């Protein structure tokens, strides 16, 4: 009997084969928005260093409809990144209650920052 093993070709359609792969891709794509928002903040920092007029222009840029849309998407993706990250933490660090501790810490930190900033 002769052997002739057949290798099935790999294409990018694996992403659509099951919801879990799509969810993985959404999680990975969060990097575009978190990275993009951080770059926007780098620009803002630059404007800050140029004085009050430049900073005011930056705040004006933030108010554009494109910026508002981008912010809403970024918030959604950032929340998805946070929840997926905290939910996976117990696998990497099998410590009792570690996910709950992360969520609690996240809530506390967010409240403190909001209180200080608003």
């Amino acid at each position, binding site marked *: 009997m002769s052997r002739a093993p057949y290798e099935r070709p790999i294409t990018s359609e694996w992403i659509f084969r099951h919801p879990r792969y799509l969810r993985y891709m959404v999680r*990975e794509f969060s990097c575009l928005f978190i990275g993009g928002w951080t770059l926007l903040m780098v620009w803002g920092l*630059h404007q800050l260093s140029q004085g009050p007029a430049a900073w005011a222009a930056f705040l004006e840029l933030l108010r554009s409809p494109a910026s508002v849309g981008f912010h809403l998407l970024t*918030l959604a993706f*950032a929340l998805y990144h946070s929840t997926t990250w905290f939910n996976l933490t117990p696998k990497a660090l099998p410590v009792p209650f570690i996910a709950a501790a992360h969520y609690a810490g996240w809530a506390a930190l967010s409240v403190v920052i909001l209180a200080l900033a*608003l």
Partner: protein
Amino acid sequence: MARSNKPIVWGPFAAGGTLTAFLTPVLVLLTLLAALGHVPEALAYESMRAFASHWLGKLALAGVIGLSLWSAAHRLRITLYDLGVRADALVAALLYAATLACTALAIYDLLKL
């Protein structure tokens, strides 16, 4: 098989991923408020300037910017490979270099403040 040097890039990725998980949503909320016309106190020119003038503020901003950008760059590198882009070494070099450049720009501006 030799041990990989991946930890050099993975360590900052894990640190940045954890940092952005804890910090980014609330910060985005703040700038979203500004975008909607309700600029929070902390984002007024004087408060921002004061924060960025203090060495602790500079350290915090540099750290958050650097780690956030690095972890996004690393994730993008992996994602491009998943999507079929085979030139991993080139993609990695470009993305990490861009990250370091943007972080350097931010540090330069922070030192001016």
